[in-house]
């Protein structure tokens, strides 16, 4: 259901994305997923990793500004309309989505939707009530890695 996402501040300049990712790879930390939000001048790298405590420490020790955020994972059938159905539920329940991203789950025919809700607890409640399938970190990593 809820899982921890790490966000890292980057300047939007050539080569800047590589630096924190190299750092994580040196520590043998594998990324489950990565999403990047950017403006002309800066970007926010958002990652989901299994050992987020270690990743957070490694990045902080190297001087990066890191923020830990709770996001909500929903899994849907990987078919047309899978995402739309969840968004309809969110819309009806007036759930505010700050941002979201999605990726297919390797070990199933399903896809993971990662949501950053303004009110994650209320979102979980509403999505579950509407029959949505929420997954926790263990399930997510088991299906994806």
């Amino acid at each position: 259901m809820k899982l921890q996402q790490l966000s890292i501040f980057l300047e939007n300049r050539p080569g800047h994305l590589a630096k924190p990712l190299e750092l994580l790879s040196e520590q043998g930390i594998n990324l489950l997923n990565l999403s990047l939000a950017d403006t002309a001048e800066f970007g926010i790298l958002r990652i989901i990793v299994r050992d987020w405590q270690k990743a957070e420490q490694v990045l902080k020790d190297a001087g990066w500004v890191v923020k830990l955020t709770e996001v909500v994972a929903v899994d849907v059938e990987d078919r047309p309309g899978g995402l739309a159905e969840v968004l309809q539920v969110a819309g009806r329940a007036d759930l505010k989505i700050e941002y979201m991203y999605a990726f297919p789950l390797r070990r199933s025919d399903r896809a993971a939707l990662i949501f950053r809700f303004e009110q994650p607890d209320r979102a979980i409640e509403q999505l579950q009530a509407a029959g949505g399938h929420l997954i926790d970190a263990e399930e997510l990593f088991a299906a994806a890695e």
Partner: protein
Amino acid sequence: MLKERWNDVEGGFHPASAPDYLPEDKLREVQLRRLRAVVKRAYDNVELIRTRMQDKDMAPEDIKQLSDIAHLPFTTKLDLRDTYPFGLFASPMSDIVRLHASSGTTGKPIVVAYTREDLEVWAEVMTRTFASCGLHRGDVVQNAFGYGLFTGGLGAHYGAESLGATVIPVSGGNTERQLMVMKDFSVTAMCATPSYFTHIIERALDMGMDMRDLPLHTGIFGAEPWSDAMRSHIEQGAGIKAYDIYGLSEIIGPGVASECSEQNGLHVFEDHFYPEVIDPETGEPLPDGEEGELVLTTLSKQAMPIIRYRTRDITRIIPETCACGRTTRRFRRVGRRSDDMFIIRGVNVFPSQVEAALLQVEGTLPHYQIILTRENGLDQMAVEVEVTPEVFSDKVRALEDVRAALAKAIEHIVGIRVGLRLVEPRTIARSEGKAKRVIDNRSL
């Protein structure tokens, strides 16, 4: 000989310029007489100065020769702030006919006052300034210095009128109107900041106008540092002679010193403002020719006598006599300052003010750097701020809001648009643990 030329207003010296040609011993005599009077006036009427002199066991009578000035206490910008608004006035308000105030600072500005006689002196030194830059009756002066609390506009205005020139009080801004006025009113001389004038040249080119075809022959530039390279650019671009003038509100406004036809150093109007150059670290006076901080004493100011004001401007007195014939001493054009204050579009900005704005928005002080550039002739200010965990967010909009709030807080202080960039931690270079706060890339 001189007298005849003074009468020849069209071609030679303006009568007001007579003190610029005093024999040296006569000039020193005038200075000593006025110094003794101004110190007495300040001692009798200004508590801060009296207290400081008493702390040093000094009385006005101790000023027996000009070199005794070195025993007097300094006055700093902080003193003017601390005594806001009227604490350094030596005249009752009933004798004060004008107030000006510094602009562009947070908190309290600096207030300066003038009696009727002070305004006459101001008009006189600005007349001498214009005369020194080759202007006379018959010239049409477009004054683009700002009118208002800033001393530039009105200071230049009354000087040009007193010279006998025709003044157009256009004030700053509205570049297209400036060009229309310049062309349609057959303007021969313009007062402006050098960066604004460069902008005017660019704008004229955009409008398909060649300023070299206009009657304009002289530019009077001040209120911000500029270089000889910029002078060449202005002189060639507009087909004019460009002169540097110097002044500061604390002393009188524009009219403290001016270049002459030689364009090689600025003559101080020494009969009204006594210049010293000191070692900024020790405060000790330096002999003429050595570089240090310029210190000025008003010799004739009534409303607000200022004793040994630390200008923070770094320069040196040029000991050689000037080929123009003036006997007043010159100092080198000011290229840098002894503190980290910088001047952008005529506004004095201290990094500490930028820090205050950053602190107000963020709660803690992030590492930051101010970068000054000159684009199309206009000074631009950018501030790079390292992102801290306190302000960082995973949401783009939240970070954009932080960026905008920081920019707004700084703009509120400096009064011009500021480019604000959020940068990664540790990207701003530190030396000895301390970041260099101001990077001035304006090709001065």
